[in-house]
């Protein structure tokens, strides 16, 4: 090397001398990209000489050379370097080819578009083309597994259900962890917005992950930001497109239940022999026949799951139109989506329309768009009743008995509201078919958005953009419970009853952004923005109920004939003002520095805590631009290192949590367990029903302030072998402090919970994304995308030096002991309970007078004075001889260790095939269904059980570790017995399409046509015994992974076509 350096030095000296001596030649020209757009800042060097120049803003250059034979080297980051002989006869036109397509991808970051190679933060772009191949209702349902570090899951399989998107782990314990959605510049916090967007309208989805990217959204950026840009008009003749698909869905699995024989065998252990032989019993004498267990083999019986599941249809249609001139461009679409649920009487459908227009006039650009969507959700939730789990659908579906006693017609089970054999005072089982077929529950969500902007170039490089938007989100719900439903049956309090509710939220936004870009000597490039935004939202909610409706055949129309019952009205509003700024600097596209700052003021906090300040800094180094990297250029095509730090916030609390309120309360609100309820103020002195008193509604916290998240991110973007392989790696560390938490309070305070700023949570992790082009020629192309993310979550601090926070994810009043724990030093959302050690075995007892007495030294369950063989046995962790609440510990983890996705795309001769796998590894599921359906639940009679319970403990099966039938309270606690591995690998989507060739299409006047078949949720590899391992019916950061009566997941098979005219 030393020798080489010496040679270089000597040559340079020599050249310098000759330059002085020789006469010079003028060369002029322009450098453009492949599309003919001028490229400013291109580096031009005379080969072998030191001198050179840089193109100006119009891509033009001029320089003097010494010799006619000199070669010019044109180099520019992101473009292939070119060597050309000088041409002094005419201005040279130099076209540079883009070097790496992926690095020139435009990423939308807050308030700006940036090329990927100029990015300093961690931003990922979702591959819309791949996602759109999944036959789902909205983009969020296809997002899982697509982007590293973005965990997308649904609580259950409800049609039209909202997805839970968590970017880089949960920050907040009890508040929303969903990201901020920014749709064409309009920030929206409500995750249900996703279902109002037609995936076909989406141009791009960018996910801002690190703080340098999200800090520009300051107060609301802590959970990451999903930026959605919709399609804008394209210059050209009108292009009309039509997409349609049809599909059929079916449940992925059923839970095996006991058949009639096993069911009756179980009843023997629950019902006394005398009762078994009585008129309510299975072994009675009827029509002079004495029934025995054997009579129930192969008898006519019901499988209730078969009766409530259906093969459900699904269809979608989308028409789009785009076109225009350079001055005016337009884009519009109309779409319809309709999906029946796999559970009868559930459906989701959506009508969606949008129209946008862009007008360019000299230095001014105007964009106007309108967007409308109407979604209708039908059907009750099967899992969301938490006072009594018995009100949830699958309690009745699984629990309803497959046979009746001989004296009753088996069809009476299907024909009657309730089962005559069941005591309605302790068991709310209701004929699920009857109830589902008669329930009317429709939610109509109407969303209308109007937004636009005006952009004006004040002077070169200085632009002002004024944008505004207005959205109206109206949600109506209609519920009619007639006499054949669970909620309106003749024995219910309200009889036939109807509820109508209306919620109306209007939000407006104004943003004023000034951007400026310039450079110094074409080496130092600056751009920056300054802005101010204002947003305000006003919500109104009304609901009314009438009861004792005389004519249920009129449906909702007969509501007015009923007796007026509860009427509610709730108003709320919030507002925000923000100031923001950002500066980007780069030196020759090699070294980058970015700084941003935002100040947010929110009406949700009291005066002294109102404003939050959110700075960020980031830098990047395109190190493959350095000379010393040249030798490995053939392997490492491009490489960039990124480093960032920033602070973001979260203000997702109630509008008025800083206020104490006096309310006139007519009815108690809550689950009915009285623990988190708001008690009412009615005291009917002198039997006066109108004596309704005022109460304090809750405990305010005047000191509430912003929750803040500080995040450090280090990342690298590398491409190898001419971009055939590209790798992005990110490491991050997030610390969220002053967590906004709906914290449980000591009940002795008179309040059950209040909003507090509590403690600290840390998330750190690694994300890898690898894209490879495995093979590519003119006919055949095979690409692969693989991503994986690891996130470690840890509670660093809780309130007032609290060591742990216990939470109960409620699903039934009999199971209110805490089942989740957040403990300092451990991840949040850990499952909590006892360690199950199997059943008490016979040899652990002394037998006297034919009763079993536990041998000394063997621990018993605290409130179970008479432990019997076959009862569940838990680990006595503190060895005090009694298993009590002190012996509870971690029994499972709610969050996965890693998750990701693998997509393979193959194109060959007009065929395209996409195969997408998605997985999640390392989380557990608290399968609460088994507390009731694999336990002989409190000896409840006539309640069917899972087929797995056949293997329960009995004296004949005394080795079994499945508890015997008993009403022991030890049966009703959370333990490792019901914790299951929730890891899964899912073949999520396969899509096979064929695009007809142009010759054929020209004959029938089509410009493009593709037909396809696709399948969704084709197979899931899991050890989980429930419907599906992607489940969390009480989903929150504290209580992930609870399964109770979840809506089952569907597998679907679709076929469709895309045509463009």
């Amino acid at each position, binding site marked *: 090397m030393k020798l080489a350096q010496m040679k270089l030095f000597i040559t340079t000296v020599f050249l310098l001398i000759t330059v002085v001596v020789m006469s010079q030649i003028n060369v002029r020209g322009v450098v453009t990209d492949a599309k003919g757009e001028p490229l400013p800042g291109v580096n031009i060097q005379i080969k072998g000489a030191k001198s050179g120049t840089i193109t100006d803003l119009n891509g033009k250059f001029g320089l003097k050379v010494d010799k006619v034979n000199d070669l010019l080297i044109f180099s520019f980051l992101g473009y292939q370097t070119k060597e050309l002989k000088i041409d002094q006869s005419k201005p040279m036109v130099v076209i540079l080819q883009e070097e790496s397509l992926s690095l020139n991808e435009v990423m939308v970051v807050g308030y700006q578009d940036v090329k990927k190679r100029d990015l300093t933060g961690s931003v990922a772009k979702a591959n819309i083309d791949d996602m759109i191949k999944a036959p789902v209702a909205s983009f969020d349902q296809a997002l899982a597994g697509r982007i590293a570090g973005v965990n997308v899951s649904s609580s259950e399989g409800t049609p039209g259900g909202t997805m839970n998107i968590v970017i880089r782990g949960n920050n907040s314990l009890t508040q929303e962890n969903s990201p901020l959605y920014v749709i064409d510049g309009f920030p929206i916090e409500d995750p249900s917005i996703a279902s109002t967007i037609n995936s076909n309208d989406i141009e791009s989805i960018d996910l801002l992950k690190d703080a340098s990217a999200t800090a520009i959204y300051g107060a609301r950026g802590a959970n990451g930001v999903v930026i959605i840009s919709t399609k804008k008009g394209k210059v050209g003749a009108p292009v009309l497109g039509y997409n349609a698909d049809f599909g059929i869905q079916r449940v992925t699995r059923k839970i095996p239940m006991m058949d009639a024989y096993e069911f009756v065998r179980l009843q023997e252990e629950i019902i006394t022999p005398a009762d078994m032989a009585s008129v309510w019993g299975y072994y009675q004498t009827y029509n002079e026949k004495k029934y025995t267990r054997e009579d129930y083999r192969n008898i006519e019986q019901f499988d209730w799951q078969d009766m409530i599941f259906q093969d459900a249809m699904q269809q979608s249609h989308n028409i789009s139109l785009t076109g225009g001139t350079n001055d005016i461009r337009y884009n519009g679409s109309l779409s319809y989506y309709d999906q029946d649920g796999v559970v009868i009487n559930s459906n989701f459908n959506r009508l969606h329309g949008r129209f946008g227009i862009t007008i360019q006039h000299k230095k001014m650009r105007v964009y106007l768009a309108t967007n409308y969507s109407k979604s209708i959700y039908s059907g009750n939730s099967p899992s969301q009743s938490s006072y009594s789990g018995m009100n949830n659908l699958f309690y009745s579906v699984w629990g309803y008995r497959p046979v009746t006693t001989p004296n009753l017609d088996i069809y009476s089970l299907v024909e009657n509201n309730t089962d005559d054999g069941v005591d309605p005072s302790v068991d709310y089982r209701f004929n699920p078919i009857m109830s589902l077929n008669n329930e009317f529950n429709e939610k109509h969500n109407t969303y209308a958005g109007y937004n636009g902007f005006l952009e004006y170039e004040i002077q070169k490089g200085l632009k002002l953009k004024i944008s505004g938007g207005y959205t109206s989100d109206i949600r109506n719900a209609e519920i009619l419970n007639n006499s054949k439903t669970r909620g309106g049956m003749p024995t219910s309090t309200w009889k036939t009853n109807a509820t109508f509710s209306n919620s109306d939220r209007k939000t407006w936004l104004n943003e004023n952004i000034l951007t400026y870009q310039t450079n110094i000597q074409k080496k130092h490039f600056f751009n920056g923005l300054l802005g101010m935004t204002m947003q305000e939202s006003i919500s109104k909610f009304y609901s009314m109920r009438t009861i004792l409706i005389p004519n249920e055949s009129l449906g909702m129309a007969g509501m007015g004939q009923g007796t007026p019952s509860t009427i509610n009205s709730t108003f709320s509003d919030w507002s925000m003002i923000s100031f923001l700024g950002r500066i980007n600097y780069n030196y020759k596209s090699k070294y980058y520095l970015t700084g941003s700052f935002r100040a947010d003021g929110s009406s949700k906090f009291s005066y002294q805590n109102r404003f939050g300040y959110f700075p960020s800094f980031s830098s990047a180094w395109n190190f493959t631009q350095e000379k010393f990297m040249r030798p490995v250029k053939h392997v490492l095509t491009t490489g960039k290192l990124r480093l960032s730090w920033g602070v973001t916030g979260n203000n997702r609390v109630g509008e008025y949590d800083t206020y104490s309120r006096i309310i006139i309360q007519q009815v108690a609100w809550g689950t009915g367990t009285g623990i988190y309820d708001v008690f009412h103020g009615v005291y009917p*002195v002198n039997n006066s029903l109108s004596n309704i008193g005022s109460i304090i509604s809750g405990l305010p916290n005047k000191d509430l302030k912003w929750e803040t998240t500080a995040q450090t991110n280090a990342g690298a973007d590398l491409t190898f072998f001419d971009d055939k392989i590209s790798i992005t790696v990110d490491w991050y560390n997030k610390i969220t402090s002053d967590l906004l938490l709906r914290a449980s309070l000591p009940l002795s305070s008179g309040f059950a919970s209040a909003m507090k700023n509590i403690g600290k949570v840390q998330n750190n992790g690694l994300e890898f994304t690898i894209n490879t082009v495995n093979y590519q020629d003119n006919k055949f192309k095979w690409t692969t995308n693989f991503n994986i993310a690891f996130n470690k979550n840890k509670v660093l601090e809780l309130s007032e030096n609290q060591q742990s926070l216990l939470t109960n994810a409620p699903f039934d009043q009999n199971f209110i002991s805490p089942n989740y724990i957040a403990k300092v030093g451990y991840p949040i959302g850990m499952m909590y309970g006892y360690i199950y050690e199997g059943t008490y075995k016979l040899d652990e007892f002394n037998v006297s007078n034919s009763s079993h007495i536990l041998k000394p030294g063997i621990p018993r369950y605290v409130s179970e004075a008479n432990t019997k063989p076959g009862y569940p046995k838990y680990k006595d962790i503190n060895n005090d001889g009694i298993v009590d609440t002190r012996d509870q510990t971690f029994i499972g983890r709610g969050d996965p260790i890693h998750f990701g996705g693998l997509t393979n795309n193959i194109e060959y001769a007009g065929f395209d095939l996409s195969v997408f796998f998605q997985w999640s590894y390392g989380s557990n599921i608290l399968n609460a269904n088994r507390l009731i359906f694999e336990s002989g639940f409190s000896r409840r009679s006539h309640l069917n059980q899972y087929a797995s319970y056949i293997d329960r403990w009995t004296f004949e099966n005394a080795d079994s570790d499945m508890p015997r039938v008993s009403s022991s309270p030890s049966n009703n606690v959370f333990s490792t017995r019901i914790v299951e591995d929730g890891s899964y690998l899912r073949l999520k989507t396969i899509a096979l399409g064929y695009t007809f060739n142009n010759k054929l299409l020209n004959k029938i006047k089509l410009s493009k046509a593709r037909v396809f078949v696709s399948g969704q949720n084709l197979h899931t590899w899991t050890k989980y015994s429930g419907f599906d391992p992607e489940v969390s019916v009480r989903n929150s950061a504290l209580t992930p992974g609870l399964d109770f009566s979840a809506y089952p997941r569907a597998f679907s098979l679709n076929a469709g076509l895309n045509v463009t005219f």
Partner: protein
Amino acid sequence: MNFINRLKIYVVSIVIFMQTACSGFLEKEPYDLVPEGYFNTQEELESFLTGTYSLIMQTQFYGNYYILYNAGGDDLGFFQRSNAVTSIICANTSSSDMYITSYWRILYEGVNRANVLIENVNKNVEIKADIRKRVLAEALFLRSFFYFNLVQGWGDVPLRLSSTQTVTGLDIARTDREIIYERIITDIVNAIPDLKRSDELTHTGMITQSGAKGMLARIYLFRAGEHYRQKLPAPETKQIYFEEAKRWALQVRESNMHGLVTPYSQVFIDLSKDKYNSTGIRESIWEAEIAGNNSIVMAAGRVGNIVGFGSAKDFSSIAELKNLNGMANPGYSYRFIFATLKLYDMYEAEMDTARGNWNIAPFEYEHDPLAPNPVIGRKYYSDKRPDGLNQVDGLPCTDETRAYINNRHTRSAAKFRREYEVVTPKDKNFTPINFPILRYSDVLLMIAEADNELSASPSDLAYACIDEVRSRAGISPLTGSGLSKEDFREAIKRERAMELCFETTRRWDLIRWGEFITNMSNTLTDIDKSEWSVDHKYASNYFKITDTYEYYPIPIMELSVNKSITQTPGW
């Protein structure tokens, strides 16, 4: 420097702009009333007082859970279901018992509501002084009442005498119960002069001077027996507690506003009929007000439906029956509580039919075997049909002839009967029946008990009081029977059982007499008897308790967030 100065001015002006221009835009107040602007009128004070009373009639208290699951576990009644519910009454509870947890929660909600009212009652001195004084007195009483229920249930409990204002620093240790006793007694004593007199009210839903005095007597008696569950010798002050109990109870008697209604059943018929002391004799002193059928305002409760007596068939869904009253539609009752053999035998021994046949169902409603099943009559157990009673509401009364049924003496508790409800339509589950918190007969028995404890042998006063109760029941007076102090004490205990069963006092009486565990265990021998229905033998599980049950467990929900509180040993 110049640049820096300009920058400073610029930054400062931006900050000023933000603080001023934005503060208006960012000022959003709730659309509800806020405490700062409340408590300014008499109506607002009364409204908040109503809200404070309200807690006693809700589901978690006298409306449902308390009277069944929490206070129902005694030796006079048992949970009539073989499917045990995790609760005190089923003797299988734990610190996560929802009935206990929600009872704890509602009592402290009551304490806090009372504290808010106490702090704000004198906010506007323009409101008439006597009104403010009366509201304050009621609030002080209610707070004390909530605390007494806490002490009864848990012993030492956290004592909060001011409203909760902040979300931090809420850890609070248990205060020695003696301190709480002192405080609540002082507060009630101070409140009494400002409360209304019973003859000033036309209803019994709010606390009166007599009610407060009677409750003071109850508090003193319970305090006198505290030492049993603490496993301590009787305190020197025990006699003082009896003196105080006697003094306050006697004041109720000497007010001459109260008396006993004949027949005994009329007291409970009034409760069902939404009447207050309809005979003009103020026996009922304080009731938890419950009304309506929950069809519109949630003011109804479950008295009579869960604890009490009604039809075993539900007619609430049958159009032609749901608006009927009386025998035609006696209302549905789950009859969760059945009387034990012990209670049955007490009435038999004294030939006490007035109370025995009221408190324990003497008959079953007879239904038409064809559905829908209207009631077609009453079928009385043997010897239970009153002489000459051949029909009620035009429907026949006949005798049960099947010996095996007549031999089953574990029968439904029937003190609260839905048959007498007047509110229609009758709801399956919700009733307008008020719950009697304090009756004059209780006051009389407290005088007798306290006086007996203070005397070497029963005084004339003690005899007079117990006999007033006994003669109303139509059983022989004890005066002249020459009972010893100990015998008289036992007589009082039996009398209280017969008079006050199913009114949520028994469990606490047993605890303060130090005989809760023994009496519960003794019931086990009754279960083996042939009169104890074979269908109810499962109830043996509900009587197997340890002395841990002399206290309720501190709820896990409290323990897990209140670092200063400790669990009662055993739980």
